[in-house]
């Protein structure tokens, strides 16, 4: 890998301008209604400078940050899957003509997007969705088109959130690959710098247009230290020394599933905010004349009754079985299906569960390990 | 010889009612508007609720004009708390009301009232011969609904209104698509006024007592004094001193009348227009004149033109509000509950809508009173029938029945509203 470069906030602004100039949508964290979401930005001023998030089970707050950093927070309610694996799309439409039907596959458009501020756990999540949606015999053309045209500009986390446990999932907090550029924000009393690792030729081409200098050893070490500090301050962890996939497989009848069902709302929030959950369903629609048809696809969740519907009723009627499906899939069967865990430790399912059910805590309960 | 004209179920009105006209020796002896819509007891179950719940609850009185209920309620409750809204929030409320006027008036003009003039059973049937006309009406109505959708969340029972303001105030730039639609709507509304002016009207007039709000500068929506063409000029606080409601056997709605004389009065577009012509925008005034209206209109059949003029005004006003809009710092004023009593009247599409609330000190509603426009107009409807139908008695049975119906429909009666009324602890025997 090429040497680390250093840019300033102006350099970052330059980068945004270059990306926009290329006709790209520039999407980055930005504050809306007191929450950091991912949305289009026009300049560095749209980034959440000086705010940070305080997260825990079922709780999220934005507060003023001790340091005026651009990326001094962790992940919010949005995942990048919103842009890559769109929440709702039309697959095809058709029209009755004569005795037949004309079927038109939906045009597959990709916005050329640049994602700024992709965290290590999110890179891992994108890699997982890549395997799910493009790694098999069939390729999701909509996903692939968007994915191929997305530029990933990662940010190494300078702090860990209250729900974060990427370190224990070995997916972060530092980006190790799968990005075009990776930034480490270094804020000191004197300087506000970004160390840049280049991860692709596209990334290099961008760097070539921005004024930068080589990182000093001191800066390099400071960045390392920051990542180490983040690792050490993780809000949560998956229990160490537990073979989680096997644990799940061995405990399909554990009483904890019943217990969690008393708390679980089966509202599906965890699956919706999860950056790897990929399930979708389709609805067929028609006009009132019964002559035009379309099929629409949208995100679905294994927490809905309809998900497992089989002429007459659902296969998973109890909330316990639906929670079990989600958790065992994420942590166990996923490994057999796609070669890795489906969990990247981003903690969204913990923060955005309205009643604060904590997946790491549930694993501990089933493993019989004391809470930390 | 006695003859009875009965309409069991009045069509093309909101809610369920019928009418009965009794004719003896060629003279209309009596007319009754029968409202058999079942009672729903809103004032009763408002008791014990928190004041903050009122806007959502009262909206359910009427699916046609929920905004009117929300507006009267929030103003009454804000009056109790002495809250004044910022000009931006006040303007947003006016805009929301514009949406409801447009939606409600256009529905009545095109789908409910016009078929009476053009000889169709309904708007859908009319569309088979007058497709472009009906489509224009539907699209114009849709613009009203788009305002409600945008600002209220949805057209029926909007969710964005709260005591003290709104849950969310829109951003200035979000208005752009709506403004574009409203510019189209202004032309469509103007065309509607012109078209309405070309209809044929029975030459029937009555010397109504008009009652409506009147505001210093504006055509009235949310605020103003209650005035009449016979010299009444009171604040809403004095409404109860001047008006009363009585309960008649044929109706689950209450009739209103002047407390002192027992006389009927008229609220709604004719009254509003005739009392506030000078407050209309120049565009609306000009269109009204071009469509053959005087500054005062006493012919209830011509209310279709008046509604069109008010629609044009509402579109015009909506554009003005959007143009002048500035984002407020906060979308609402926080309110600490206090004990007290307060009332407010606003102008629902169908006319004056009066609310009064008494609160406990923790904000619990102790008592609520709501007087909707349709119950205020009931007596007037019946008088219209008695006076006008006499001139139509030579018509064949079916045509006469139709004319009776039209006479009721002139009022755009909202029976669903009318039945949710109330009167507290008063037995006038």
């Amino acid at each position, binding site marked *: 890998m090429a040497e680390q470069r250093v840019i300033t906030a102006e350099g970052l602004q330059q980068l945004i301008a270059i990306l926009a100039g290329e006709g790209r949508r520039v999407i980055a964290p930005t504050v809306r209604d007191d929450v950091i979401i991912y949305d289009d930005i026009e300049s560095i001023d749209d980034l959440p400078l000086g705010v940070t998030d305080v997260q825990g089970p079922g709780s999220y707050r934005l507060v003023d940050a001790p340091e005026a950093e651009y990326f001094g927070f962790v992940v919010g309610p949005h995942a990048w899957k919103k842009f890559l694996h769109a929440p709702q799309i039309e697959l*095809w439409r058709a029209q009755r003509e004569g005795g*037949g039907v004309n079927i038109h596959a939906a045009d597959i458009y990709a916005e050329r997007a640049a994602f700024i501020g992709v965290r290590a756990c999110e890179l891992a999540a994108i890699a997982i969705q890549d395997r799910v949606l493009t790694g098999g015999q069939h*390729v999701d*053309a909509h996903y692939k*088109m968007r994915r191929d045209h997305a530029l990933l500009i990662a940010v190494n986390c300078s702090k860990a959130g209250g729900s974060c446990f990427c370190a224990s999932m070995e997916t972060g907090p530092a980006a190790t690959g799968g990005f075009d550029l990776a930034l480490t924000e270094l804020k000191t009393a004197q300087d506000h710098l970004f160390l840049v690792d280049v991860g692709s030729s596209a990334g290099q081409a961008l760097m070539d247009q921005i004024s930068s200098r080589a990182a000093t050893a001191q800066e390099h070490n400071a960045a390392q230290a920051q990542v180490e500090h983040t690792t050490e301050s993780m809000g949560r962890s998956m229990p160490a020394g537990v073979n989680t996939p096997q644990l799940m497989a061995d405990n399909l*009848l554990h009483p904890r599933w019943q217990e969690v069902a008393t708390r679980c709302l089966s509202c599906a929030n965890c699956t919706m905010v999860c950056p790897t959950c990929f*399930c979708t369903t389709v609805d067929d629609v028609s006009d009132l004349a019964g002559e035009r048809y379309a099929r629409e696809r949208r995100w679905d969740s294994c927490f809905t009754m309809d998900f497992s519907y*089989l002429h007459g009723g659902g296969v998973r009627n109890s909330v316990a079985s639906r929670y*079990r499906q989600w958790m065992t899939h994420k942590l166990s069967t996923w490994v057999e299906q796609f070669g890795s865990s489906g969990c990247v430790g981003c903690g969204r399912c913990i923060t955005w569960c309205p009643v604060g059910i904590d997946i790491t805590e549930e694993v501990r309960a089933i493993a019989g390990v004391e809470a930390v | 010889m006695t003859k009875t004209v009965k309409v069991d179920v009045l069509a093309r009105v909101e809610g369920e009612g019928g009418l009965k006209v009794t004719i003896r020796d060629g003279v209309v002896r009596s007319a009754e508007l029968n409202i058999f819509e079942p009672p729903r007891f809103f004032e009763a179950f408002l008791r014990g609720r928190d004041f903050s719940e009122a806007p959502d609850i009262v909206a359910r009185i009427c699916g046609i004009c929920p905004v009117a209920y929300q507006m009267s309620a929030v103003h009454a409750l804000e009056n109790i708390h002495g809250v004044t809204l910022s000009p931006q929030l006040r303007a947003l409320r006016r805009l929301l009301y514009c949406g409801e006027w447009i939606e409600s008036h256009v529905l009545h003009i095109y789908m409910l009232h016009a078929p009476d003039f053009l000889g169709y059973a309904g708007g859908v049937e009319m569309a088979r011969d007058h497709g472009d006309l009906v489509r224009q009406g539907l699209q114009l109505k849709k613009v009203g609904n788009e305002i409600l959708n945008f600002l209220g969340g949805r057209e029926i029972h909007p969710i964005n209104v709260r005591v003290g303001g709104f849950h969310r105030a829109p951003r200035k730039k979000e208005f752009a698509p709506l403004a574009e639609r409203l510019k189209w709507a202004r032309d469509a509304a103007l065309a509607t006024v012109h078209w309405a002016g070309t209809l044929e009207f029975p030459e029937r007039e009555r010397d109504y007592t008009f009652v409506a709000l009147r505001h210093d500068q504006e055509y009235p929506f949310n605020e103003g004094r209650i005035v009449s063409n016979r010299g009444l000029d009171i604040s809403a606080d004095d409404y109860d001193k001047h008006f009363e409601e009585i309960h008649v056997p044929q109706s689950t709605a209450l009739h209103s009348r002047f407390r002192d004389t027992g006389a009927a009065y008229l609220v709604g577009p004719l009254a509003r227009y005739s009392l506030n012509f000078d407050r209309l925008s120049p565009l609306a005034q000009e269109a009204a004149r071009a469509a053959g209206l005087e500054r005062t209109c006493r012919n209830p059949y011509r209310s279709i033109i008046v509604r069109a003029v008010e629609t044009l005004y509402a579109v015009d006003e909506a554009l003005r509000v959007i143009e002048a809009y500035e984002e407020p710092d906060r979308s609402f004023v926080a309110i600490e509950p206090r004990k007290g009593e307060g009332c407010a009247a606003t102008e629902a599409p169908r006319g004056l809508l009066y609310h009064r609330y008494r609160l406990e000190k923790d904000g619990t509603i102790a008592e609520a009173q709501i007087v909707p426009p349709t119950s205020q107009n009931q007596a007037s409807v019946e008088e219209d029938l008695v006076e006008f139908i006499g001139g139509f008695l030579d018509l064949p049975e079916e045509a006469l029945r139709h004319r009776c119906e039209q006479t009721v429909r002139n009022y755009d009666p909202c029976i669903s509203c009318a039945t949710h009324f109330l009167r507290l602890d008063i037995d006038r025997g």
Partner: protein
Amino acid sequence: MALMSAHRLSTTSGCGVPADVPRLGYVRGRRSDAPGVWTLDIEMADDAPCDFAPGQFNMLTAFGVGEAAISISGAPGGERLIHTIRDVGPVSHALANLAPGDPIGVRGPFGVGWPMATPGSDVLIIAGGLGLAPLRPSIYDILARRDAFGAVTLLYGSRRPEDIVFHAEVEAWRREKKINIELTVDHAGVDWRGHVGVVTGLLPRVQLDPSRAIALLCGPEVMMRFVGAALTEQGLDATKIFVSMERNMKCAIGHCGHCQLGPTFICRDGPVFTYERMRPLMSVKEL
């Protein structure tokens, strides 16, 4: 803005159409095979070949109504796609009631079919209800090269005699004596001269040589559980028992997640699995 920077991709899979978009076909024939069970004969509008492996399924679309996974019940290598459908829900109702000439959407074939038996092996085919439909292609396949197999037996359980699908054809197979056939029903009147009782009750009648037999099972999951257990009890290795599973399928390509059973996607990894693989999964309630 989005459109300006958009690129359009023309994606085609092997048959020229994305896997999530149906191809157009026309119903050419429709006949009743049992009460509420209809077999459609579909011709593809694009004349594309209708290759498939026995046990695979297609996703059929009734336009405006929806899509359902329907196993292919015709002979491999045919000109037309043959599907047998039970009218149970809105989509299958619409499909089953398509008339000749009506358009229909087809995606597929999908999934993993029945194993090709090694030459010389005995084949025990056990079907329940409409489960005979996805097994019929493999029966055609066996009959087409009958000499390659040892003893071939079909045990078929049905609800009532009139619910036996392909009844005339089954009787014709029986007359040909190329395969042994035992039918049983759950309920029968006096006219029925065959067996009454559950399909497992027929197993003792079969001379099973566990060393050279494979078993193909398709029917309600409860039936397959019991038959699988009975066969292993009789010494047949669970790896030589194959079951065809059913779950809610939407995408049919392992992307939508609906049809998961434990670690498997029924649409992609199945619908045919070894009993060995399914046994632990079928035993957990609501998995």
